[in-house]
């Protein structure tokens, strides 16, 4: 009986997807897998109808800009979550990276690219330590990265002297996020797209990506197939750390300052985006495109509610409900398929 009901709905959403992406079969296949995409379209349509101020280029570019930081963090976390791990250190870790960039550029007055690379390297280092803790010390990822979350939060405060670091004197730093190499589109959005492509390539086209799925699918089997899973897990966390570092540079450039008290809570938003995008917390399943859609759902939703002047308290409630619904429908669909 429930089967009968489910059929037309699935077809309808598949049709919607087809209409939206007449292009390659690959895209269609991926998008069909994700009810999240349908949700995104519905949200966009709803807010466009509800407020005439929503569907303007300025606002859309604003939405994309506000997706940048969470989106970049979420890409890195997607890789970790597909291995059935978790990384809680990305939020405060991002802050530590921006503080390090600040120290290099403002306090030491080093060239711009060194500051940027320094921030990214800090992220990589944190990821490396996370990976070593998970792989070598065999700490559960939750604990290892929780510890790193606190360490990064503390270090960000210590290194900055509990004061924001301002980049106003650093030529061109702000442009990393807010300049427009493509007119009308802030660079942060460009970086979001580029990191997305990078994450997509890593996941879909490289050995690392293959082993990310393999480990998440069945770590023991991967190991006895002769793959050094420990080594690859270290690499996964390190790569995720690089994404954290990039997010740190982007947020610093956007705020033109490193705000050491920021960052806590960003990890949960990023994880929510990953989950909404259809990546399984149990591992083995997920996609970068899904994560991008998940992050967009979050920022479209929040932006739309703000434009409609919905009370902040209720905005939070609505976001919570959307996460529940998105994840539930997704698991429902999987159960049907199974």
């Amino acid at each position, binding site marked *: 009986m429930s089967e009968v009901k489910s059929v037309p709905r699935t077809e309808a959403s598949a049709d919607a997807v087809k209409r939206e992406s007449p292009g390659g079969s690959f895209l269609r296949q991926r998008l069909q897998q994700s009810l999240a995409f349908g949700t995104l379209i519905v949200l966009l349509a709803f807010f466009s109808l509800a407020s005439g101020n929503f569907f303007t280029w300025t606002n859309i570019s604003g939405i994309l800009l506000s997706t940048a930081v969470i989106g970049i963090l979420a890409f890195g976390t997607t890789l970790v979550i597909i291995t059935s791990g978790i990384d809680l250190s990305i939020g405060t870790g991002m802050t530590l990276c921006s503080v390090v960039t600040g120290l290099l550029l403002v306090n030491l007055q080093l060239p711009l690219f060194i500051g940027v690379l320094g921030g990214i390297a800090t992220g990589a280092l944190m990821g490396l330590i996370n990976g070593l803790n998970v792989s070598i010390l065999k700490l559960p990822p939750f604990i290892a990265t929780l510890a790193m979350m606190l360490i990064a939060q503390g270090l960000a405060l210590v290194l900055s002297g509990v004061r924001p670091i301002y980049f106003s004197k650093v030529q061109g730093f702000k442009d990393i996020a807010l300049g427009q190499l493509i007119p009308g589109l802030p660079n942060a959005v460009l970086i979001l797209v580029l990191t997305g492509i990078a994450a997509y390539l890593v996941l879909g086209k490289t050995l690392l990506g293959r082993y990310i799925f393999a480990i998440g699918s069945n770590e023991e089997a991967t190991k006895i197939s002769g793959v050094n899973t420990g080594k690859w897990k270290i690499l996964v966390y390190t790569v995720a750390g690089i994404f954290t570092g990039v997010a740190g540079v982007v947020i610093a450039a956007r705020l033109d300052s490193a705000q050491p008290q920021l960052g806590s809570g960003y990890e949960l938003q990023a994880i929510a985006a990953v989950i909404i995008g259809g990546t399984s917390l149990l591992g083995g399943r997920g996609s970068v495109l899904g994560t991008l859609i998940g992050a967009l759902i979050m*920022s479209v939703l929040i932006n739309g509610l703000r434009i409609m002047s919905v009370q902040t308290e209720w905005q939070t409630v609505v976001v919570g409900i959307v996460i529940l619904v998105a994840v539930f429908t997704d698991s429902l669909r999987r159960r049907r398929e199974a």
Partner: protein
Amino acid sequence: MKLGKKALAAGVLAAALSLTACGGSGSATPSGGGDGGTPYVAMISKGFQHQFWQAVKKGAEDKAKELNVKITFEGPAAETEVDSQLQMLQAAIDKKPTAIAYAALDPEACVPAIEQAKAANIPVVQFDAGCKSDYPVNLAKTNSMDAGAMAADHMAELIGKSGEIAVVGHSQINSTGVERRDGFLNEMKAKYPDIKVVDVQYGDGDHLKSADIAKAMIQGHPNLKGLYGTNEGSAVGIVNAVTELGLKPGKLTVIGFDSGKAQLDAIRSGLMAGAITQDPIGMGAATVQAAIDASKGKSMPKVTDTPFYWYDKTNMDDAKIAAVLYQ
């Protein structure tokens, strides 16, 4: 081997928990009170990460040096952590200091702890926000309602007493957030009937979140003439939004609160019309003075109003104003 790993994991967890529990402490002065007769004042603040509290701390430390007093200054990691702040207060009482200076995060939750201080015969003074108890001798605070009203008056003046405005608040719970908002809204309602407040939203003082909120507000209300941010993060967020949208300076009147380098720069460049500042350094100094006076049994008023000022491009370099602004 297995045991070792478990123990290690447990150790990390314990460390993590204890870190969370104390949130973080401003200055690590050894525990234990009044050694060698030097008076010791334990200050429990609402936070320590924010620039405002750092300035209070600086004022307190300078005053302490002057009076030859030892102080500790600590506060929770976030201004929502009522419970961990109470644990800090409890720990301070146990150290038997000469006096305690306290800024209540929650006016009710602190009452039992203050009663304990009373039982232990430790004088208590308060700063920034008070606890609903009769025991504390003095409260040094800024009248945030009045400060909010002052912001409203300046906003009304600058936009010609009519049009749409909106507020980016930093908290709908914490007393300074509530009072700065209500003082502003009440004044608008009472005095400027032609001004309409179209939206009030909250960004937790997070610069990025506040910027996104301000952008959505500007987007959603194309006729918006003014925006008011109730603390440094909210105000700087509004400024970021204006910059990112590429609005011409002056198209939107932005009024902020507190100081900090980004806000000062914005006022100098004309992106922000002006802001209200308290005197955190003065508050810190007054609090330490009151604590020492209280320990000597001097009588003093229940509430000391610490000053607040309007500052803009024209007066921000005056000696009196410049002294209370922090970078």
